[in-house]
């Protein structure tokens, strides 16, 4: 199957080890992480967001979405094709805008 870039946004409780949990799901399935941006929600240290630029297949991104949503701390995992959204969110983050 053809691999391509996907931007994956994960909304989660900002617990210790949450990034490990997310990365574990991806590593186990050998999904390549090209870039990763993670931050607490502005004014709410209890929740946060991870935005990942992944390189994988359509089948695998759908599967990892469901595996990620099985993590107790994860509220939602949403993906879109391509890298556009990732760089847009990265720029806003760099400019300290609420994303």
């Amino acid at each position, binding site marked *: 199957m053809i691999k391509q870039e996907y931007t994956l946004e994960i909304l989660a409780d900002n617990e210790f080890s949450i990034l490990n949990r997310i990365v574990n799901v991806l590593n*186990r399935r050998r999904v390549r992480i090209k870039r990763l941006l993670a931050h607490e929600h502005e004014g709410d240290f209890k929740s946060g967001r991870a935005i990942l630029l992944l390189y994988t297949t359509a089948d695998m991104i759908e599967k990892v979405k469901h*595996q990620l949503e099985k993590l*107790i701390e994860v509220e939602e995992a949403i993906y879109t094709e391509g890298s556009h959204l990732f760089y847009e969110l990265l720029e806003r983050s760099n400019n300290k805008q609420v994303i």
Partner: protein
Amino acid sequence: MDALQTKTKVKGVGVAEKASVIKKKVTGSEILLQCLVNEGVTTLFGYPGGAIMPVYDALYSYADKLNHILVRHEQGAVHAAQGYARATGGVGVAMATSGPGATNLVTGLADALIDSTPIVCITGQVFAHLLGTDAFQEIDVINTTIPLTKWNIQVTEAKDIAPAVAKAFYIAKTGRPGPVLIDITKNAQNELIEEVDYQKCESIRTYRPKPVLSMAQVETAAKLINKASRPYILAGQGVILSGASKELIAFSEKTGIPVACTLLGLGAFPTDHPNYAGFLGMHGNYAPNVNTNECDLLIGIGMRFDDRVTGNVAKYAKQAQVIHIDIDKAEINKIIKADVAVHADAKEALTALITKCDKKSHPLWMKSFKHLNDIEYERVIDKDIHPTEGNITMAEVVHRISELTKGEAILVTDVGQHQMVASRYYKFKNPLTNITSGGAGTMGFALPAAMGAKMGKPDKQVVAVIGDGGFQMTVQELGTIMQYKIPVKILVLNNNFLGMVRQWQQLFHEKRYSFTEMSNPDFVRLNEAYGISAERVTERDELDGAVKRFLEADASRFLEVVVGKEDNVFPMVPAGSGVSEILLEAPKH
């Protein structure tokens, strides 16, 4: 007054009496134990050590409320907790110290995760200020067990213990059940805080364990079922976990659909029911495997299309439409693409389907199962269970136990040839009676799991069926059985080989028996050293009496049956083959 008072909203039970104005101060350890009591725990399995000593000290005063079983190795504790959970349908609890105590739990956690077993493991941890310093017996148990638990948490303050325990039990037993681990630093165990009201967890913001049943999905599924001429149900452990066996029977009887069970699904549907189609999988029955590739509608319920069930996926049920009912959304379309996915609890889905599906029968389709069953009986089963010459077979031993217990015992199996034989020939009648290590295939599982099952169901006959290899992986638990006089029955089918590996070496590696033959100790004397009465059988005419003495014993009893060294388990779906390419015997060449 108890250190903690239960305050629960469940079913309006109400709020317990208010604590006195000046609250008593208690340690984190006592809070932990009171939480366990409030969660209904009566039995736990564990092994003490430095980092969990405050909890054990508190446990000394809780002997009237919590029956702690001192195992001989932490792996024994976690498998016993699994056995307890699988036999009772409740949550099993295991406890260990930090470092190697915690890592010894790891195999059981992995096993419980893949086999959806609700357990809560509690580990001690070094003082919080020593975390990350390579202190004595400090290992990073959280990151070690993230991939092997449904959830885990480290607690470093006593105030966080009660909420962590409440979440742990809620997560372990809801949705698709699984193992949870709570790692508690020693300072939190020692810390004195004011007693708190215990509040059971009823929801977690980001966790939705119970999907809302979509009637649209049910109706679409029902349409497929109503028009199918060769529909076929594959029942997995999800049916047992959701308590849906009665609904499955009612659904099958109304729709006339045959039901086959996966390894962990055995017990979900009575094996003596006329609609029972058999045991699925690599060493399952002939008919259910062959007819997987003949049906026009496959209905997977609470099962995950494991590779031992599907064989080569490229050759799996290509002719059929597929309905997949599962509580775990990640299982749907993971292996087999579903034409209709019903993301739901099995009981709810079946209840809804019963009302939407037509009453039907499929006599020709059912007859095809009978025809294939007759072939298997003649070519495999009859020879297996009624041999007239040669060595004792594993099958005839299991068959006799099945007859004498009327399929009502709890059968706990290890991993290997004996496991497949036991699953083929024990005639399960009820849910929660088949306890085995399925997904992980953990040798050494059965002996401690049987202990746990017997502790959970003391009135049931519990029989552990083990090979000579697996028995020696956790044989130290004979000490636990001795100390607590746990009347579990231990059957070792001894072929002096790691039999399943040897079978593969014979069939696929030109009989190069690379490190699979075992020189074994005198198992009878070994058991007798532990005070367990024991018997060894080598001749067929001794078998029946020995099995009766084994089952009739009031106390724990050990039976070793010496079986053929190079007997194989058939039928078999060779690796890489489709399920309909199942072999009834070894190829001649």
